[in-house]
């Protein structure tokens, strides 16, 4: 994934720092609580939400089960409609393909629709290294780009900024990139949106190359779908002469009809609207309407490795709505940056360690960035059991085992940091398989309980720093059971 995130500290370190930032916490709390209530209302409006959710899950599972077939079908239908299909096994290859395609047009700048896939591969940085300027046109992405910042939310990458901060960034930075912010810009959202409109319009009007992702690709028809709000997507998809779309291979749905499920569940789950303001669909190229050249870059970059994991593959159902972020108590407090990935929050905690592997400190710590409360699973419109995958990934980190990396099966060694935990578990296994020793140990523990420490020594100290040690009972359970005949004697 993007080089921007290399060397990120582990989640607990980054989260501890974020939690100390009261402005950030205030901004996050306000935004996530605003959207939570609205989403709940938008979902209640449709009486068949449970059925839509189940159908969405099944469509995605079916697609993933036959992904090779649908990829080939998609390639065929996009090509038949006048598009050109490219395949990229990893980020470097995708960046190389896009860079070459832009160079072939002779252009030095591109306009971009907000796209998670291009952020994931670090496309902007790759283009910049070749002297090509990529302009983000989504309002939140613009705020992030102008603020030389990193995105912290899937849907609203600038969620960590409040209106006052956004005003300051616009007033300070817009002139560096093009049309300056209007004089006397205030922090009302309408004025900020107006400033973005004026700033970006000159870029839209002269753009010759647009770069996008896609929310869905329909295999049977070769249709791509972009769901958006501001109209920047429409600008990038229709005004340039060349359109390049970089899309993860899991974004396929088999049929046109399948969109009827996701076009109902996605807007309600993401911006909590009945329908987002603009949805664009295009199938290859259309004569004299929109770009005359259309390239589709199909991106793997860890997705097939994720597909190989029978528990973890459900993460590929994700339609990037971000509902799980907005309800997560950990995300609300730690914010998106602590997750060290373009995919923050609960979905990021299961997606990043699968796409990138659990080799780095941050990726090995992400499966622990959760209290396992399950709110994310509740709201997920494609029913990804995020807690289940988190626990599965924790097991992988601690125990190691067989995983797929870049298409090859490799055996992971157990993580170093969990030696004490493993030793404790081994001791427990021995004790539970030796009843005599267990009984003796329990009696000794009960008799000596007055002398037990409140906190653990050595490596256990961190664990007991935030937890109470459970008190040992005065009498072991089995002794009590024998003495009272299972409590029948009424003797406590």
């Amino acid at each position: 994934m993007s080089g921007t995130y290399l060397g990120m500290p582990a989640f607990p370190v980054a989260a501890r720092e974020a939690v100390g930032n009261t402005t950030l916490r205030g901004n996050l709390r306000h935004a996530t609580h605003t959207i939570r209530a609205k989403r709940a209302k938008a979902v209640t409006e449709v009486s068949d939400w449970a059925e839509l959710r189940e159908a969405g899950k099944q469509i995605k599972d079916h697609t993933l089960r036959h992904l090779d077939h649908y990829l080939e079908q998609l390639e065929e239908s996009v090509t038949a409609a006048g598009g050109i299909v490219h395949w990229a096994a990893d980020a470097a290859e995708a960046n190389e393909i896009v860079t070459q395609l832009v160079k072939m047009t002779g252009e030095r700048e591109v306009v971009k629709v907000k796209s998670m896939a291009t952020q994931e591969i670090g496309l902007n940085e790759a283009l910049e290294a070749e002297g090509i300027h990529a302009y983000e046109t989504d309002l939140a992405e613009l705020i992030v780009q102008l603020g030389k910042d990193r995105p912290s939310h899937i849907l609203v990458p600038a969620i960590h900024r409040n209106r006052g901060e956004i005003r300051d960034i616009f007033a300070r930075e817009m002139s560096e990139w093009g049309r300056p912010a209007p004089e006397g810009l205030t922090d009302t959202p309408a004025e900020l949106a107006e400033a973005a409109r004026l700033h970006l319009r000159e870029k839209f009007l002269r753009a010759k190359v647009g770069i996008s992702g896609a929310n869905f690709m329909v295999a049977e028809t070769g249709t791509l779908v972009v769901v958006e709000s501001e109209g920047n997507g429409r600008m990038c998809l229709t005004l340039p002469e060349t359109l390049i779309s970089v899309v993860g291979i899991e974004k396929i749905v088999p049929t046109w009809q399948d969109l009827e499920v996701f076009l109902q569940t996605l807007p309600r789950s993401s911006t909590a609207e009945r329908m987002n303001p603009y949805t664009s669909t295009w199938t290859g190229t259309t004569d004299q309407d929109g770009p005359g050249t259309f390239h589709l870059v199909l991106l793997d970059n860890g997705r097939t490795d994720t597909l190989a994991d029978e528990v973890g593959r459900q993460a590929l159902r994700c339609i990037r709505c971000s509902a799980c972020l907005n309800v997560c108590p950990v995300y609300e407090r730690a914010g998106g940056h602590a997750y060290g990935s373009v995919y923050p929050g609960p979905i990021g905690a299961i997606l990043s360690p699968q796409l990138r592997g659990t080799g780095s400190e941050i990726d090995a710590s992400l499966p622990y960035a959760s209290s396992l409360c399950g709110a994310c699973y509740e709201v997920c419109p494609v029913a990804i059991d995020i807690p289940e995958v988190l626990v599965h990934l924790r097991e992988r980190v601690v125990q190691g085992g067989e995983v797929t990396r870049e298409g090859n099966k490799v055996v992971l060694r157990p993580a170093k940091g969990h030696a004490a935990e493993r030793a404790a578990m081994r001791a427990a296994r021995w004790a539970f398989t030796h009843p005599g020793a267990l009984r003796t140990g329990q009696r000794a523990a009960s008799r000596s309980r007055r002398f037990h420490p409140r906190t653990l020594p050595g490596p256990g100290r961190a664990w007991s720093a935030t937890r109470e040690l459970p008190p040992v009972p005065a009498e072991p359970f089995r002794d009590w059971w024998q003495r009272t005949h299972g409590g029948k004697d009424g003797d406590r």
Partner: protein
Amino acid sequence: MNSRERILGRVRRALADAPADEAPIARDYLREHGRRTVAETVELLAENLADYRAVVHRTDIEGLPGVIAGLLEKRGASSVLVPPGLDEEWLAATGVPRVADRADSTPGELDRVDSVVTACAVAIAETGTIVLDGSPDQGRRRITLVPDHHICVVRVPGQVVSSVPQGLERLDPARPLTWISGPSATSDIELDRVEGVHGPRTLEVVLVGQGRIEST
């Protein structure tokens, strides 16, 4: 081995142990939400359009030219984009200079046009959505994007469906489609919806009845 073969090979190996899936997808969800008369469906469309800040007008086919002329006048439009197949009658009552939808217009030229008038392909009541499919009476996608004022005419009840599933059934995926639900908006500042960013900031939808829609 090229990347196409590599990726397809990885997919096949990843799925080698996956159980077969033969069960059809359970489409137990509703084709539409609630039971409504035709007039109630049109009413719901109007309500939902207005809820997302589109300005809704109702008239019949005789009144349409007058309504469009009035809207352009009120806007103070000095030019109006017209797709090639738009019913000429619709603009019969206005003298605002027309700009044709041409393939060789530059985006800069379109940016200097004040308003655009189009028909639509279908309208979806439950979501307050109008869909354009690039037919001759709707024109190229960009003409309803660059000008700041869009007047869209919906023939009711003929072009109105209740729900998203019904809308998709009526649409041709081979055409470039634009689904529009209210004027452009953003939720990017503190996750609160603000209307008016890059697309037309004023969307006016004229629901044109066949003369007796209120009573059906």
